[in-house]
């Protein structure tokens, strides 16, 4: 049988998960990446000092049912450091609240974690459990119907207290979707709750024990190359060429050459995917809907200190800072980040829009000041260096009412496919969502090949 060729635009998690499945099926895969590094929203690179700069604070959850097996397959799973099963919530003056999940079957583990802590008051605890129990007993179809509400609205409708949103869910919403609980659709949040309530280790957190560059994308590249595939960096695609017969004929690159294949997959982020599509495709409602989705900005700050400012080997959430989630990478991932004997604190700043107008230095100053309040030991440390990565168009904005505009991986152009966490997949916008979408796109391509 003739070997089929597929070109994938974008080397993020979605594109590479798709590429791996296609390569396994004997398809010759070429992945085009416009930047000099692979990884998309999970990428990392070295600065002039040789320090690793990450595009974000990337965390693995135990409930990542597609991503984790994928990492095992490509030989990257071994690089995840799983942490104690505890959610840490940081408050001013070094106060840390712990929601510890004991080793009990789900949902009892979560019930204990949410009942046995000092973060919530008794009345908050009493209303939380029955309020959230509905997502345990109902299936994902129920969550999908909740897309008309914001999480905060749904929370209120379930008779749970706003103070719980303020203390925890807002920080979780900002950490995962980069928008607050009042702007975030109830669908993705309750989907996460559903997963968390169904499996004991679903909410367990893991950090990569190195950089995504070395420990995610290098194994993925190797896996692909061993199966005849390739990742080409610095290859910017200008447009998908669509013929008069409504089939994709090739990808026009910035250097005005065209790459041809049997099928094309756009695995680029939403805003880039829109730029690659010829305007005339917007006559299809399917494609026009892409313009009804929005992207959300995010920033990631990294500050190096001359001494250790934290001794907790885990992720922190907070509602009291310009960042919602943070960790000392020198503790959580010492293999890669404990080079200077001091701390390297990584902080995801969201919502980023209000601060975007400020200079990097001003934002880093604010992040440092907030960190001093949360971790008083920071005040004694000297700031060695700080970096800020700004991503103006990160994941799609998971706002109420947006779910109906998300495209399937199949498109009206029979040999053109889409993937990325903004496309239809069960999980929220995340690494897991990206991998789910990539695998769905691979299935769609293989199905189209089998149908001739």
């Amino acid at each position: 049988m003739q070997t089929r060729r597929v070109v994938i635009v974008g080397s993020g998690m979605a594109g590479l998960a798709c590429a791996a499945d296609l390569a396994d099926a004997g398809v010759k895969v070429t992945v085009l990446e416009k930047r000099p590094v692979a990884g998309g929203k999970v990428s990392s690179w070295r600065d002039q000092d040789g320090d690793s700069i990450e595009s974000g604070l990337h965390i693995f959850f135990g409930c990542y049912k597609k991503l984790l097996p994928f990492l095992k397959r490509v030989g990257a799973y071994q690089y995840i450091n799983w942490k104690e099963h505890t959610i840490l919530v940081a408050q001013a003056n070094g106060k840390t609240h712990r929601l510890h999940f004991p080793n009990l079957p789900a949902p009892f583990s979560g019930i204990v974690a949410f009942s046995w802590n000092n973060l919530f008051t008794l009345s908050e605890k009493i209303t939380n459990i029955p309020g959230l129990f509905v997502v345990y007993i109902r299936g994902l179809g129920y969550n999908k119907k909740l897309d008309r509400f914001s999480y905060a609205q749904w929370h209120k409708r379930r008779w749970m207290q706003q103070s719980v949103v303020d203390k925890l869910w807002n920080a979780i919403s900002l950490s995962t979707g980069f928008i607050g609980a009042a702007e975030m659709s109830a669908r993705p949040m309750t989907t996460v709750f559903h997963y968390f309530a169904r499996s004991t280790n679903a909410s367990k957190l893991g950090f990569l024990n190195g950089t995504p560059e070395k420990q995610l994308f290098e194994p993925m590249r190797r896996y692909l190359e061993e199966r005849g595939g390739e990742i080409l960096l610095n290859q910017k695609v200008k447009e998908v060429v669509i013929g008069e017969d409504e089939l994709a004929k090739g990808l026009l690159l910035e250097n005005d050459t065209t790459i041809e294949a049997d099928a094309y997959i756009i695995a680029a982020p939403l805003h880039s995917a829109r730029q690659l599509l010829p305007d005339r495709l917007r006559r299809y409602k399917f494609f026009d809907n892409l313009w009804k989705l929005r992207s959300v900005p995010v920033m990631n700050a990294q500050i190096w200190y001359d001494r250790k400012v934290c001794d907790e080997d885990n992720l922190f959430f907070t509602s009291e800072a310009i960042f919602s989630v943070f960790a000392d990478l020198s503790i959580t991932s010492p293999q890669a980040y404990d080079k200077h004997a001091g701390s390297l604190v990584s902080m995801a700043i969201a919502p980023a829009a209000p601060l975007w107008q400020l200079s990097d230095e001003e934002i880093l100053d604010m992040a440092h000041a907030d960190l001093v309040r949360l971790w008083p030991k920071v005040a004694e440390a000297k700031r060695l260096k700080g970096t800020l990565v700004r991503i103006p168009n990160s994941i799609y904005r998971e706002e109420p009412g947006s779910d109906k505009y998300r495209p399937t991986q199949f498109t009206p152009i029979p040999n053109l496919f889409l993937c990325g966490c903004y496309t239809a997949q069960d999980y929220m916008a995340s690494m897991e969502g990206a991998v789910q979408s990539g695998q769905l796109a691979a299935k769609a391509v293989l199905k189209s090949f089998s149908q001739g």
Partner: protein
Amino acid sequence: MTVDEFVEAKVLPQYHDIVAMLRQLMHEIVPEAKEYIAYAMPSYKINSIFAYILPNKNGITFSFTRGTQFEDKYGMLKGVGKSARHVKIKSLATVNQEALKYYIKQALELETS
């Protein structure tokens, strides 16, 4: 956390008077706005957050969510990006309150139009 608690906890004492002045101005010009802490910053909301206060070690940054749409006859608006703009205030003595009122009124007009 209330705005008063925020000021106590996160604004350097030498800038308390600036924040008090801004809160007073907002209260006078936009009494219908809700003043509260959103995303760890004092914010003003009618339909959405249209102004917010960011303290730092060098002064107070008074921000307008849709500042790029303002007219700026005083030339005091700073910032980069597609939407928000701000005025930096280092001392109460040098602040141009007329200019601040001019910006606040535009923020209000955009918010309610």
